[in-house]
Structure formats: C-alpha cells, structure tokens
C-alpha cells in the first residue's frame, strides 16, 4: 500500500512535468492513472493548484470521462465490450457468465482485489466479436469457455 505522502509526491511530480503542455489536464490525469491505477480524490487539490484551475474544474473533468476512476482498481481490469457488434455475437450471455464467474457486477472489484469489471463501448475488434480486454491484452471471439481459460491462467499467475 502506497503511503499518502508518496502518492502526493508522485502526483506533484507528474503534474509539474506536464503542466506546460497546451491542454495539460488530460495528459496529467492519464499520467497519474497510469502510475497509480486511479486518480486519488486527494490529488485534485494538487492538480488544481499546479494548473491554476479550481478544484471543481478538475473534479468535473475527472468525473466526465468514463475511463478515469477515483478508486483503486483490482490487479487486473476486465473490459467487456457491450456495443452492438458484440451484442450480435452473444455478448449479453457472455456478460452474465462473466459476472457470475467473478461474482461482481460492472464497475465493481472482486473481494480479493484480483479483478475489476468494466463495460466498454467498442474495442475496435468488431470483426472478431465478442471482444474483451484484460489489462492491455485483447481477446476476440470470446466464449464463456475461453473467458474461463484466460481468467484461470491469470489467476494462477498471481
């Protein structure tokens, strides 16, 4: 577990390094989420003062975008595509299987902290629907069986 002071230093370092880019806020938020896995609510004040914005403006941006999160994710984030192309290939049944296998709903994290489940609206893998991404790894033509295989392979590795 990272100590709050270390988190704050990380946030300040990222914000300071990127603050002079035109339109720096999104690059800063990405930098923080890439490093910490999420954007801690207590970092809003530091980001705001670095960019000379109000805290409300920073919070408004974080909360606008689906990708940014203010809670720590599980070790692995499963993104399951729910858009039309994947629906045409049975993603709704797959989603039910994924939820019951992991024992969580969308936007939740398993009790052991291994997996978070997020919906995604298109991974651009529509010729190989249904699609999912686990961490940075993309999978196509996902079936309940192949989902189980991926999850157990990852689960065994942690």
């Amino acid at each position: 577990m990272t100590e709050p002071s270390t988190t704050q230093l990380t946030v300040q370092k990222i914000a300071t390094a990127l603050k002079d880019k035109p339109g720096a806020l999104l690059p800063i938020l990405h930098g923080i989420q890439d490093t910490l896995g999420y954007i801690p609510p207590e970092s809003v004040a530091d980001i705001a003062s670095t960019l000379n914005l109000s805290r409300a403006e920073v919070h408004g941006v974080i909360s606008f975008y689906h990708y940014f999160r203010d809670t720590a994710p599980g070790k692995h984030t499963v993104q399951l595509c729910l858009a039309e192309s994947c629906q045409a290939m049975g993603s709704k049944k797959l989603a039910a299987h994924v939820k019951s296998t992991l024992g969580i709903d969308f936007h939740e994290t398993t009790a052991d902290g291994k997996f978070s489940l997020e919906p995604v609206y298109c991974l651009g893998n529509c010729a190989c629907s249904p699609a999912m991404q686990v961490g940075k790894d993309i999978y196509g033509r996902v079936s309940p069986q192949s989902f189980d295989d991926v999850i157990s392979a990852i689960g065994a590795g942690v």
Partner: protein
Amino acid sequence: MSITVYVPRDSSAISLGADRVAAAIIQKAQQRSIDIKLVRNGSRGLFSMEPLVEVETAQGRIAYGPVQASDVAALFDANFTQGGEHALSLGLTEEIAYLKKQERLTFARVGITDPVSLEDYLSHDGYRGLANALKLSQADIVKQVTDSGLRGRGGAAFPTGIKWNTVLNAPGEQKYIVCNADEGDSGTFSDRMVMEDDPFVLIEGMTIAGIAVGATQGYIYLRCEYPHAYQALNEAIAKAHAAGYLGDNIQGSGKTFELEVRLGAGAYICGEETSLLESLEGKRGLVRFKPPLPAISGLFGKPTVINNVISLATVPIILDKGGEFYRNFGMGRSRGTLPIQLAGNIKHGGLVELAFGLTLRELLYDYGGGSASGRPIRAVQVGGPLGAYLPESQFDTLVDYESFAAIWAVLGHGGIVVFDDTVDMAEMARYSMEFCAIESCGKCTPCRIGSTRGREVIEDIMAGKELAKNVPLLRDLCNTLLNGSLCALGGMTPYPVLSALNHFPEDFGITG
C-alpha cells in the same frame, strides 16, 4: 539467405493468438535450424483467416490461415517455409478472392508492410504525396484535394477540400491540424487498422494538411481503447522525426510540422468534433455551439482543420496520383473508395475497400459470406450506434452517401454490423436510447433527458403497456431529439430507434 515469414501485429490478429503463433514460429525455426526473418506486418483485413501467416516465395507471398500456435509444428512438417501444401494453405495471398477483388487506395500498403518500418513505407510509394505537395503552392495542394471529391470519412461527409480552403484563408499566426481518431462507433475499425498497420500514411496526410493550410502543429486525438495504435503511432512519429519528415525543416523545405498523439478517456461524445476540441484543451467534452466553425475558431480558438483518420490517410495517394485519379473511382457525388468494415454476426468479417456504388447485398453475401451463425441475416446497422437498422428489403441499396440518405439511413464511417434472426429489435432500440443516455455530454436537454425518457418509454412498450399511447409518444420524443439536439448524438439516436420501429414493428408487439 533467410526466409521471410509474416505474422500480423494488428490487434485483432493478436486477439486471435498472433503473438503466440509468432513465438511458436521463432522457436520451431530455431529447433529445426531454419533461418527465418519474422516480420510483424499489418493485417490484410480478412479476419476469418487470422492469424494469417505468410511466407515469401519466388512466386509471391503464400498464405496460411487461420493458424494457431498448435498448428505451427505441422506447418513446419509440411515445409511451409518453402510454400509447402498444408490443410491451412490459402495459396498466393494476392489471389485470395476477398482481397483480389478490392480496390485498395487508402489501404494500399496495409497488411503488406511492416507498419513501423520507414524503409518499407518508402519502398511502397510512401512520402511521394508529400514530395509532390512540397513542389506545389498551398492553394494548389488544397485544389488537388478539392478536385479529388474526397468527403469526410468520419460520418458527416463534408467535402475535405472546402474545409481546408476555409482554414487556408482564415487569418491567424497559429493554425492546427487535428486528427479525429476517437473511432467509437461499434462495427468500425478502419481507423484502428490504419493507425496500427500503416501509421506513416496518417502522419504523411497530416503533414501535407499542415503545409497546405499553414499549420505547424498537429494533434492526433486517439481513443484510449486503442493501446496498440498509440504505440505504433508514437514509434512511427519518432522515426519520421529522426528522418526529417517531421520537425522544423521537413525534407529541407524550410516548412515546420510537429505532431503529438493525445489520448481520450472513454467518452464517445469526444468523437464529435467540437467536444473533441474541448477535450484536447483539457476540459469536459461538452459540445460547442456552431458557429463559429472549427475552421475559423477551433483548437484554443485558432483556425483548425479537424478531419477523420481515413480522410487524412487518403490525402497522400491523392497528392501522389492527383485529384483526377481518385475522382475516377466511385459514383455520383460519392467519389473515390470507402473502406467498409464488416462486423458482428458475419462469416467473413473484415476490411473491404471498394469504390462507392456496389450494393449492401454484395457486401454481405459475396464478401461477408452470410451470417457467422448460419442463420438468415435479419437486420444490419450501418454507420455505427447512430445509424439506421436496415431490413432485408433494403439490402439492394447502393453504398453511396445519397442512396443511403434517400432511405433515411447513413453510411457514417462505413461500419456494417450484422444481426441474424435471433435479434430482438425492440431491445436494440432500447439499447440505442440507453447508450445515448450513458454518453450524452448533458449540454442540451433533448439528448440529456430525452434519452432516459426514451429508454423508459421503450421499456413500457416492450412490457406491452398502453401501446396506443406509448408508440406515438416515442415518435414524438424522437422528433424532439431529431430537431432539438445540439449535435449528432441526440440528433441521430432516433435513426436506429425509429428504423427498428418502422421496419420491425412486430418486435415491439405491434400487429397488423
């Protein structure tokens, strides 16, 4: 002399196991002391055959697919590195009917080259468009694009040359080129393929755009769901920079153009151009009122060309071969080619680039081979989540902007999502409203409130509640969204909803 073997690095190929296949080929080649050079090329776009392994022979490239890592030993046993016969043999890649019949202009190199090799790019006609552009006046570059008849491939189909001309003539010290790479429509992946499989063509197109209108800075606003594209673009940008194709003295011309990739954060609305500009400025992606047009007052209030990936990636071939060359493809007011994407429940999903003017039916059956499930195709959605659903009776519609407009449908970004006869069209209509509610930026009331009310009304209809009251109510609500929304999200969500209702009333419990 080592043998060149190709295994795609395209993320769809990877999603089907291409990385494992590549690793297995390297390992088996070492075990058998066969000297191979493994190239991670782009994908040819025939995804039913991915991972598609190719081997260079005296006759040309010979393809095998779909290959799994477990097939690799047998491929070596069959002497595939010499083009040997195997159950997965597909013959010469160029002779595969799906690929041979295509007219690839924008996708000319995709699947053939190593995407991040500048040498490959140059030896396959790369940067010839830029070389020509550097010899022309700014107005003449714009004229070539105007003459080509190229219309924005992102969905709105606005003539690209006219947009450029506005920016060229707009006063301003600082101008920008922004590439809209927030390809969020379900069923579309042509932008992703260009960026992963031929990133230099987008870089070249943006560089030409910058020189044409006098912009020195470009941004590619890329959706964060595309990590492979992000990596490929950054690698290619670094190489272009090192070789003097980007920077402050492009190929000794004295012209400057810098390029940076910026990541979105999962908001569909940021594919709308003004919302995208807000996001690039570091704000919530709220749609702007127009006018002013981005061409006059765009990024940071400066004149800005904002074009889709495919539009910009088509510019190099236009500047290489001339506006007339490109214009000679297509029909009516739809000139050139459209990279069509076959997706969803389709046997041979993939990328099909053809001149405008063939029918939807030819695409679905001659190229797509019918549904993946083997059941009858009942509906297709063309143009993403805001596109209309088309029933079988409309499959003879020609693929061109005007023919689609005539049946109250849109071509959009050229994505076609196929559904078989198990689809519940009332549920698809409900989903369209739900998606609009999730993705609405909230600035205008019809979209923000109307989408939620729309979902509720459709749920009531699906439950069989007061159809005589609720169906007209849904139509009335759609009318409000169509006419009262600020942008296409609210303004076009009625396309899928009403087309589902009109063409498939039985799914809504409407009889007679």
